[in-house]
């Protein structure tokens, strides 16, 4: 692509790179963690 003569040079350091994060793939074989069992609270 013809973009003409260079004029100046600078550094750009984004706080976060503009690259979408990998979407976590769902693993259907993974077992769900059992819900925590609640201990009876003594009053």
């Amino acid at each position, binding site marked *: *692509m*013809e*973009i*003409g*003569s*260079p*004029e*100046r*040079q*600078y*550094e*750009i*350091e*984004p*706080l976060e*790179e*503009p*690259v*979408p*994060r*990998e*979407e976590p793939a769902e693993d259907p074989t993974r077992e769900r963690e059992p819900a925590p069992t609640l201990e009876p609270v003594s009053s």
Partner: protein
Amino acid sequence: MRLPDSGSRAPDYIDPVRGWRTWLVVQGHDGARLASVSFPALWPRRRRLSAECGRGFHTGAGPPLRVEHGAPSMDCSCGIYATWNLERATQIADCATARFRDCLGRAVLGAALGEVSLWGTVVQCAHGWRAAFAYPARIYVLAPSFGRRAQVATGEELARDLAAYGVPVEALECASTLEIRRVLGDERRADRAA
């Protein structure tokens, strides 16, 4: 007193530059991928593209730069290109779609135009930029009727595949560069007004 040289310096800017560019859409192992038009490079999904200087692949007016250097350099023509001029980008798209049948040994399925984010070391030129790092920001898949060539897949099919880049992708049903400029020009005006 002399401060120790840490080898790093503060950046000049923190916001990436946004420019226009054209891609070929090529057949990947797992769907359509973006590829550069004038340099054999596939654009990775969800990872930045990094520039390297292929010494000897000098396309500028001066003699090839013989010293090894980081890309881009003011004294070379290396780097990842983009232009601020939509008209220039659409002209490239017009040539690319008519000219290429395969790229990197892969079938060319079509062409795309879009906005790209550029960062790292950036060389600003008269009509655009050359940068060290890039990632697509918005992709417009060009219609099969554009560029007077038979496209293997429909714009919608390619757009679905290219959604894996994780950025907005749209099939553009335009048959000429004039129509593309009108449609995208209207979109940009609407974005600015919003």
